[in-house]
C-alpha cells in the first residue's frame, strides 16, 4: 500500500489511508448511522457501459463549467436563489435607516412595528432561500462528482498497461480520491459562496452610491485600492504558503510511512537516532511552512480590520459635517456605516475561498490530463469480434521496446501450434515476459505482427480477444470479496457447479470444504488469509473457470511448501490440457515439461526445440542445464528426470 499525499494539508493523509481511520464507525454513533441507513432506498443498477473503442468525449477540455452545465436547470435555480438570498441579506441597514429617520425622528411607533415585521420576513426569506440553495447545490455537487468518478474510472479502464507501470499506484489512486474530492467542497459550497460574496460587494457598492455619490466615492476611493493591494498580496503569498505546507506535509508522511514500513531494517542497522533527527528536519520544514502561512494570516486579518476602522473613521468625520450641513440624515449615516461593514465581510471570505478554488482548479487540471491521455493500445475503429479460435499463435518479425529507443525484442519469428505448450526460458531481462504481454495485447509490437488463428491482434476487439485468453500472473492477485467471486472473476454468471469443478481441477476442494463459510469465505485484503500456495491455486482455478483457448502462465517463484507445490503442479497439468499455453518458466524443471522450449536471450529467440534436442545441441540451454545438474550432482541427489516430451 502506498501513501500518496496531495490535495491540501487536510486531505493529504486521508487519500492514501483509504478510509483507515474510519474503518469502523464508533459505537456511540452506530445508532445514528443505522437510523440514516434505514432511509436509504435501493439504488438502480449501474448504467454505465464500457467499450474500449469509445474514448472520453471531451476529456481534453474538462473544466468546472462543462461539468455542471449538464444540470443547467438546477444551476439556474441556484442562481435565482443566490440573488434572493444576497438581496434580503442586505435589508438590515436600510431598514435601520428607515426606523431611525421615519420611526424615531418622527416618533412613529407603527413605522417601527412595520420595519421590525418586514425585517423578520426578510430574515425568514433569507433562511428559506439559503436552505433551498443548499439543497440544490448539494445535489448538483453530488451528481457531478458521481459523473466524474465514473468518467475517470472508465478512462482508467481504457488505459493500457504501460500507464499503470509508469505511474505509481499511489498517484493513480490520488486522481480518483483526493483530486475528485477536492472538487466536492468547491461545487457544494465554494462556487456559490463566490457568487454570493461577489454579488454582495456589487449590491453594497450600488447601495452606497445610491445613498450619496460623494461619500461613496470617498470611501470607495480610500478603501478599495488598499484592500485590493492587500488581498492580491495575500492571495499570492498564501497560495505559495499552502503549496509549501502541502509539499512539506507530504514529505512528513512519506518519511513516516517509509520508516514504519522499513522499521525492521531501521532496527537492524541501529538507525533510530539518525532517523529521528531526520524526521525532526522534515517536520521542521513543515513547521516552518505552517508558521509562514500563519504569519501571512496574522498580517492579513488585522490589516483588513484596520482598513475597515479607518474607513469608518473617515466616514464619521466627513459624514458628521454632512449631517451638520443637512445634506445627510442621521439614519443615512448609520446605514452607511453598517453597509461599510457589510462591504468588508465578503473580502476576507473571498480570499479564503480562493484557496479552495485554486486547489480545485489544480485537480481539474490533473484530471483533464488523465482524461486526455490516449491508451497506447488502441482498439481499431473497425475492429471485429474475434471468432472462437483454435489457438494458433504466430509472431511475424516482431520487435518491441517499452521505450522505442531501447528495443527489448528484436525480430521475433515464432509459431505456436494450437494446443501446444511452449516454455520460454532465458536470463533476467531477456524478454520472456514481454513476449507473453504481446500475446495478451497488453502492448502492441513496434514492428511486425502477432497473429492468433491468422487474425492480426490489432484488427480484433480487445474484449473478444481477452475473453479467449487466460493469464495466471506470478503474484496471484485476489480481490476482496468472497472466494466464489474471486474464482468466477472471468465469468461472474457461472454457477456453483462450475466453481466446484474448477476447484476440483486444481485440487482445492478439500481446503474449501474445510472452511466454515465454504465458497462464501471472505478473502481478506489482498488475500492475506490464504496461504501463498492456496492463493496460487485460486488464481489457477480462476483461469480454469474462464475456459480460455490460450493460456499464459508466469511461473511462481515464491517458496511454496511441499504439499502446495505438488498440488500446483498437478493443477497445471489439468489446466494445460488441450490448450495453447505459453509458460514463462523460472525453473528448468517446469520448462522440461513443455512440448517445446524457446530460449530467449537479449531480446532474440536463440534456440527452439524439445528438451532433449536442446541439451544435445549444447547451446545456451545446454549450458544452463549443465550448471543446474552439476549442482544437483554435488548433492549426489538424482537430477530430476526430464519428463519425456
Amino acid at each position, binding site marked *: 500500500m502506498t501513501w500518496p499525499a496531495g490535495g491540501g494539508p487536510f486531505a493529504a*493523509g486521508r487519500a492514501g489511508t*483509504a478510509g483507515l481511520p*474510519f474503518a469502523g464507525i464508533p459505537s456511540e454513533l452506530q445508532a445514528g448511522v443505522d437510523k440514516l441507513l434505514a432511509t436509504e432506498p435501493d*439504488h438502480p443498477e*449501474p448504467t*454505465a457501459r464500457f467499450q474500449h473503442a469509445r474514448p472520453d468525449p471531451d476529456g481534453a477540455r474538462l473544466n468546472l463549467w462543462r461539468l455542471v452545465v449538464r444540470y443547467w436547470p438546477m444551476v439556474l435555480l441556484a442562481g435565482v436563489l443566490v440573488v434572493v438570498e444576497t438581496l434580503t441579506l442586505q435589508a438590515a441597514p436600510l431598514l435601520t435607516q428607515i426606523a431611525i429617520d421615519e420611526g*424615531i425622528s418622527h*416618533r412613529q411607533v407603527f413605522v*417601527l412595528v412595520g*420595519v*421590525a415585521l418586514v*425585517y423578520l420576513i426578510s430574515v425568514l426569506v*433569507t*433562511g428559506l432561500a439559503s*436552505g*433551498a440553495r443548499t439543497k440544490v447545490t448539494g*445535489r448538483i455537487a453530488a451528481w457531478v*462528482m458521481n459523473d466524474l*468518478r*465514473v468518467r475517470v474510472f472508465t478512462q*482508467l*479502464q481504457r488505459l493500457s498497461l504501460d500507464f*499503470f507501470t509508469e505511474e505509481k499506484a499511489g498517484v493513480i489512486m490520488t486522481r480518483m*480520491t483526493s483530486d475528485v474530492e477536492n472538487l466536492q467542497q468547491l461545487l457544494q459550497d465554494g462556487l456559490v459562496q463566490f457568487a454570493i460574496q461577489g454579488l454582495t460587494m456589487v449590491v453594497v457598492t450600488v447601495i452606497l452610491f445610491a445613498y450619496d455619490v460623494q461619500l461613496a466615492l470617498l470611501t470607495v476611493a480610500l478603501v478599495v485600492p488598499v484592500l485590493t493591494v492587500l488581498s492580491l498580496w495575500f492571495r499570492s503569498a498564501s497560495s505559495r504558503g499552502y503549496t509549501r505546507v502541502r509539499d512539506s506535509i507530504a514529505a512528513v508522511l512519506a518519511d*513516516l510511512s517509509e520508516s*514504519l514500513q522499513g522499521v525492521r*531494517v531501521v532496527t*537492524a*542497522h*541501529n538507525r533510530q537516532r539518525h532517523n529521528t533527527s531526520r524526521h525532526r528536519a522534515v*517536520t521542521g520544514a*513543515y513547521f516552518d511552512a505552517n508558521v509562514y502561512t*500563519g504569519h501571512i494570516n*496574522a498580517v492579513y486579518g488585522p490589516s483588513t*480590520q*484596520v482598513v475597515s476602522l479607518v474607513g*469608518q473613521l473617515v466616514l*464619521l468625520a466627513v*459624514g458628521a459635517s454632512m449631517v451638520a450641513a443637512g445634506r445627510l440624515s*442621521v439614519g443615512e449615516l*448609520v446605514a452607511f456605516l453598517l453597509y461599510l461593514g457589510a462591504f468588508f465581510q465578503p473580502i476576507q471570505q473571498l480570499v479564503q475561498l480562493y484557496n479552495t478554488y485554486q486547489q480545485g482548479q489544480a485537480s481539474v487540471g490533473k484530471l483533464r490530463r488523465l482524461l486526455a491521455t490516449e491508451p497506447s493500445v488502441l482498439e481499431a475503429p473497425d475492429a471485429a469480434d474475434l471468432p472462437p479460435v483454435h489457438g494458433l499463435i504466430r509472431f511475424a518479425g516482431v520487435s518491441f521496446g*517499452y521505450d522505442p529507443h531501447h528495443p527489448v525484442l528484436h525480430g521475433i519469428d515464432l509459431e505456436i501450434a494450437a494446443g501446444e505448450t511452449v516454455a520460454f526460458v532465458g*536470463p*533476467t*531481462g531477456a524478454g520472456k*515476459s*514481454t513476449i507473453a504481454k504481446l500475446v495478451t495485447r*497488453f502492448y502492441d509490437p513496434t514492428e511486425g505482427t502477432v497473429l492468433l488463428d491468422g487474425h492480426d491482434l490489432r484488427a480484433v476487439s480487445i474484449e473478444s480477444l481477452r475473453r479467449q485468453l*487466460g*493469464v495466471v*500472473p506470478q503474484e496471484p492477485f485476489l480481490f476482496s470479496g468472497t472466494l466464489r467471486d474471486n474464482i468466477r*472473476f472471468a465469468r461472474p454468471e457461472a454457477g456453483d457447479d462450475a466453481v466446484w469443478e474448477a476447484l476440483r481441477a486444481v485440487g482445492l476442494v478439500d481446503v474449501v470444504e474445510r472452511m466454515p463459510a465454504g465458497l462464501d469465505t471472505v478473502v481478506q485484503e489482498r488475500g492475506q488469509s490464504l496461504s501463498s500456495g492456496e492463493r496460487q491455486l485460486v488464481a489457477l482455478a480462476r483461469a480454469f473457470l474462464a475456459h480460455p483457448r490460450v493460456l499464459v502462465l508466469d511461473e511462481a*517463484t515464491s*517458496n511454496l511448501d511441499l504439499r502446495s507445490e505438488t498440488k500446483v503442479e498437478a493443477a497445471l497439468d489439468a489446466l494445460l490440457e488441450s490448450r495453447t499455453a505459453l509458460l514463462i*518458466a*523460472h*525453473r528448468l524443471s517446469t520448462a522440461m515439461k513443455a512440448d517445446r522450449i524457446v530460449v530467449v536471450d537479449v531480446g532474440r529467440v536463440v534456440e527452439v526445440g524439445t528438451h532433449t534436442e536442446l541439451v544435445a545441441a549444447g547451446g545456451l540451454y545446454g549450458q544452463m542445464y549443465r*550448471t543446474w545438474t552439476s549442482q*544437483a550432482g554435488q*548433492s549426489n541427489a538424482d537430477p530430476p528426470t526430464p519428463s519425456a516430451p
Partner: protein
Amino acid sequence: MPVVLAHKWTFASALALALAGLVINVQVPNLLRGAIDNAIVTHRAQLATYLWWIGGLALATMVTGYLGRTLLFRTAYEIEYDLRNIIYQHLTRLSFPFYDRVQTGQLISRANSDIRSVQMYLAFAPFGLIQCAIGVVAFGYMLAINVPLAVVAMIPMPLVLLTARRTQRSLFPVSWLIQARLAEVATVVDENVNGVRVVKSFAAESRQLSALERAATRLRWAYVKDTDLRARWTPAVQNLPRAGLAIVLLLGGYLAINGQLGIGAIVAFSSYLMMMQAPFQMIGMLLMLGQRAAASAERLYEVLDEQPEIVDAPDAVPLAVSSGDVEFRSVRFGYADGEDVLTDFSLRLHGGETVALVGRTGSGKSTAARLLPRFYDVRGGSVHIDGDDVRSVTLESLRDAVGIVLDEPFLFSVSIRDNIAYGRPDADITDIERAARLAGAHEFVLHLPNGYDTVVGERGYTLSGGQRQRIAIARALLVNPPVLVLDDATSAIDVRTEQEIHAGLRTLLRNRTTLIIAHRLSTISLADRVVVLDEGRIVAEGTHGELLATSPLYTEILAKAEEPPQDGTPEGQRPVAGSSR
C-alpha cells in the same frame, strides 16, 4: 498533556494578546455610539476626540491582532511539531513484537490524522474561547447601555445554541457514513489499480466499472442526505441571531422615541448582536472538535503507552566481540501468545565458522536467526555471543556486531548509495562500491541512469527482486559485522549472479561467524557445517555429505529446493536498466 504544558507560557501570552485585541474590537461600536449620540445628533462632545480614539484603537488592533495570532499559530504548530517527533521517536523505539501485532497502515494514519485533529483543536479552541469571551464582554456593554433591551435582544441566542448543537448531532453520523463510503470507492479503485493485470487479462473492465458505479451511487446518496440535513439546520443557525435585531429595532426604537435611548445605541446594539453571532455558532463546533481531539489524544496515548519490549538491561555493557563465538543454549521461543516455534534449540557456532540452517517452511529457521540480534527475547534458555548473554549487552553494540540480511529486502526511496550506506552513513564511495562489487550489484548499478545516485522508487520496487537482494547484501557487508546472518538472502538471484556473489562471500566469510538460512544447495555449499531443523529443534547436523547419507529429511528438502529461479523480476515489472525513465 505534557506537550501542551511545555508551551504554556507562550500559549498564555498568545491568549492574552488575542483577548486584548478582541476587547479593543468590542470597544469600537461603543465609540461609534458615543460619536453619533454625543457629537452628531447632539453636540455635547467633540467629534475629534472620538476620531482620535478610533484611530488609536485601529493601531492597537493591528499590533495585538498580529502578535496574538502569530503567537497562537506558532504555539499550535510547535505542539504539533513536538507531538509528531515524540510519536516518531517512540515508534522507532518499539520492538519487533509490536510491529508484528499492528498494521502499519493504521499506525501511519494514527500518527497523522490523530495528531492533526489534536492540533486543529489546539489551534481552534483558543479562537473559540476568545470569541466566547467577546460574547461576554459585548453582553456587558449592552447591559451597560440599557438593561431591558440587552436582555430582550438576547432571547434568540439560547435557541441558536440549541440549534447549533442539534446540527452537530445530526450531521455527525452522516459525515462518518460519507467517510466510510469514500473508503468503499477507494477500495474499488485500489484493487483495480493493483490488480490491473488480472482485470485486463480477463476483460473484466465493464464489471469493475459497475462495481465502481455502485459504490459511487451509494456515496452520492450519502452526500445528498448530508445536504438535506445541512439545508434544514444551517440556515436556522445562521439567521436566528439576526432575529434579535428586529427586537432591537422595535423596542430600541420605542425607547429612543421616549428619549430613554440614543440612536447611536441602536447602531451599537446591532453591531454587538452581530459580534455575538459567532460565539454561539462556534460553541457547537468547539464541542465537536473537542470530542474528536479527545478521542484522538486517547488513541495517541495508546501508542505512547506501548512500551518497547526489548530494551537494554539496566547494567548492560557494550558487547566486545573477540572470537565471534555464537551459542544458542536450549532456546525456547514462540511469537506473541502463539505456540512454541523453537523448543530446546541448541546450536554452537565457533568463531569464523559458517553454518547453514536448513529446514522446511515453518521449521523455525528464520526465527532462530532473528533471536541473534535480539529482535525478540527467548522464552527459555539463552543466546550468547562470545559468552555474553545478548540480554546483558547494549542493543546498539549488539546490532552493530550482528549484520542481518532479511529475506524481504526493504529499500528506502533514496539513492542506491544511501541505501547501501544505510548502516554506515559516513562511508565513502570506494567502500560502497567495494561492498556493491562483493554483493554482485556494482555492474547493474552502473547501468542505472544515474549510477549510484539513482533514486529507487517506493520500497525499491523499480528494481527487480534479485537486484534488491543484492543491494541489501551490500548494505550488510558495508557494515563489516563480525557476525553475519543471511536469511534466504539470495533466493531471487539467478544462478550465474549467485555464483559470483558466492565467490565474493567465500573470501569474506573466512574470518566471520556466519549463519546462513537457505533452501538451495548452491547457498548451502558455502557452509562448513549444515544443521537440519524440524519442528523447532535440531534433528541432524554434520557436513553436507554426511547428512546426505544419514538424514532422509535433508535429502527431501534438497530435492524440492533443487534449483534457483532464473530471475527475480516480479511480474509486470521491468528492470530499470533496460528503460530510460
